[in-house]
């Protein structure tokens, strides 16, 4: 027995040793030269864009973070791309299996979820496994209002009540738990979402497993639907980036880094953790309302299941936690991979691939893909960041 274990150990260590060497060679022979060539190619663009970026840095930089020329260019092109997607996506879509606008609309909703998760979990380090309970609360509120109160209620009424419901559920989870530290907080958020799931499946008045089919989708027009999802997403991204770059964001990161020191600096960490949870609940609610308008159906597997919470975390991790824009990019990467690149495969196979990618990012680019790319872009001309 012992000798088997020893043998296994030797085999494992040789394999990992060899793997490490292969990775090292790969890095030296392939990644570094490619990176250097890219830097040489991109540096002139960076130089050209620098004056524009400087103008931005002087006017809006203090509020949304400073950028180098290239970073500014990438953001400008991305925003322009998202705003014009309604026109170009139907043309590019067929190359990726069709339905690209639908995927981008869905990605916008997930971007909202991932960014909302990020401002709370990514920034404070208090990882929530229960964020789908918040979007679920919003979705179920909309459905219940339409089914039990008045099917003709306007979206503004159901929407605002639903966002309020997400905020209330957020407070219900946050108030008793945020005094806890370490894994206890995560565990309780996990239990909260399990409870919520059982609640929705156990009572037929809450729709049971089939849920509610009565809520209508916003529209069947793919282009219009995309903009219904993308515009709120961009506004939320703007608002959350602003918050994250403000003093509040700095305090939230400080809580993650050293909570006792935040206390010692005369600030009450619990108060700020509560703020971050509320700040996260509101866009979660908005995302939930949008998801109702996207699917037209409110049921446990679309809204509540714990997989949803984990998917938000995965998206945020792929993109790069505690950066807001990283999770945004992560959502588009995740959904495009899921529904376009891998679209020929069955759902389990697709998710197998996706989780493997998450694993790879966790091992090889712990700070997230988009964060790593972002810092590289900022340093093409050798300056740090």
């Amino acid at each position, binding site marked *: 027995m012992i000798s088997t274990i020893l043998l296994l150990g030797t085999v494992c260590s040789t394999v990992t040793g060899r793997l490490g060497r292969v990775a090292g060679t790969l890095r030296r022979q392939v990644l570094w030269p490619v990176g250097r060539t890219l830097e040489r190619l991109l540096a002139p663009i960076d130089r050209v864009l620098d004056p524009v970026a400087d103008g931005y840095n002087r006017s809006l930089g203090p509020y949304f973070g400073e950028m180098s020329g290239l970073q500014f260019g990438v953001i400008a092109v991305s925003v322009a791309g998202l705003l014009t997607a309604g026109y170009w996506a139907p043309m590019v879509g067929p190359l990726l299996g069709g339905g690209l606008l639908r995927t981008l609309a869905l990605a916008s909703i997930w971007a909202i979820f991932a960014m909302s998760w990020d401002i709370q979990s990514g920034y404070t380090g208090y990882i929530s496994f229960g964020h789908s309970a918040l979007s679920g609360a919003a979705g179920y509120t909309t459905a219940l209002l339409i089914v039990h109160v008045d099917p003709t209620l306007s979206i503004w009424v159901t929407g605002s009540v639903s966002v309020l419901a997400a905020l209330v559920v957020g407070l219900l989870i946050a108030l008793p738990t945020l005094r806890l530290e370490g894994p206890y907080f995560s565990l309780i958020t996990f239990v909260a979402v399990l409870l919520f799931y059982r609640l929705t499946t156990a009572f037929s008045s809450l729709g049971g497993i089939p849920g509610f089919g009565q809520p209508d989708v916003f529209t069947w027009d793919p282009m219009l639907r995309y903009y219904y999802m993308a515009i709120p997403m961009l506004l939320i991204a703007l608002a959350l980036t602003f918050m994250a770059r403000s003093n509040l964001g700095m305090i939230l990161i400080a809580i993650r880094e050293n909570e006792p020191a935040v206390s010692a600096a*005369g600030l009450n960490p619990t108060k700020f953790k509560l703020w971050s949870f509320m700040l996260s609940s509101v866009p979660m609610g908005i995302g939930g309302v949008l998801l109702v308008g996207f699917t037209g159906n409110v049921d446990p597997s679309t809204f509540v299941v714990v997989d949803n919470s984990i998917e938000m975390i995965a998206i945020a991790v792929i993109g790069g936690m505690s950066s807001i824009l990283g999770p945004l990019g992560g959502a588009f990467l995740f959904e495009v991979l899921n529904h376009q690149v891998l679209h020929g495969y069955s759902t389990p196979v697709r998710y197998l691939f996706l989780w493997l990618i998450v694993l790879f990012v966790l091992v090889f680019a712990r700070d997230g893909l988009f964060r790593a790319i972002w810092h590289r872009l900022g340093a093409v001309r050798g300056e740090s960041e």
Partner: protein
Amino acid sequence: MTDAILEIDDLDVYYGKSHALKGVSLSIGEGEIYGVIGPNGAGKTTMLNAIAGFVDYDGTVRYDGTDLAAVRPQRIVRDGLVYCTEDRDLFPYFSVHENLLMGAQFRDDRDGVRADLDMVYELFPRLDERREQEAETMSGGEQQMLAVGRALMSGPDVLMLDEPTLGLAPVIIQDIGAALETLQAQTGLTILLAEQNATFALTHADRLSLIETGEIELSGTHGEFHDNEYVREAYVGVH
């Protein structure tokens, strides 16, 4: 003493069954540097933790006339009693500048904050040279300077320092000592200094107490401590 800004009366602290602080009383006057010396485990840190409201205690702590028993730790800091702990408690991935700003997060007076920033950078030129450096990558002495600097950014009237010389090179210890004296002379800051390094405390404190196994064994002025046989033999070493 009548103009005491910080008064500790009959302070008792228990950790479970062990009696860490046994009826300690001190009175610290406005504008003085008060040293508390004693060996490892004597209760110096416990005393500071009690004053800052981090541990429960029996007895009274009075700061500027108010009993601190019912005041929350964050309130205590805002009222000007600032504690710079032994483990420095920096934000490791924040720059020097950001760490300093964290100390002033709760303040509304922008001009005062800016003036204090200039004061800290002038007091510790090493920090000025390293504004953008991450705290984690700095040497122990620089981190200690940053910890003191951040405490100063909270605009203290009384600064409690726990072992500011711990593990530092003699040159750095000199710098820190000089900074404390500058602060006392220029801003009238009151400093409560807990130190194992008796020589350092003796050099800079106006009055001192010696604390051993949770009790105050001796209190007196700088001169009395300097001439005391027991202190010289046990804590300072023969000169």
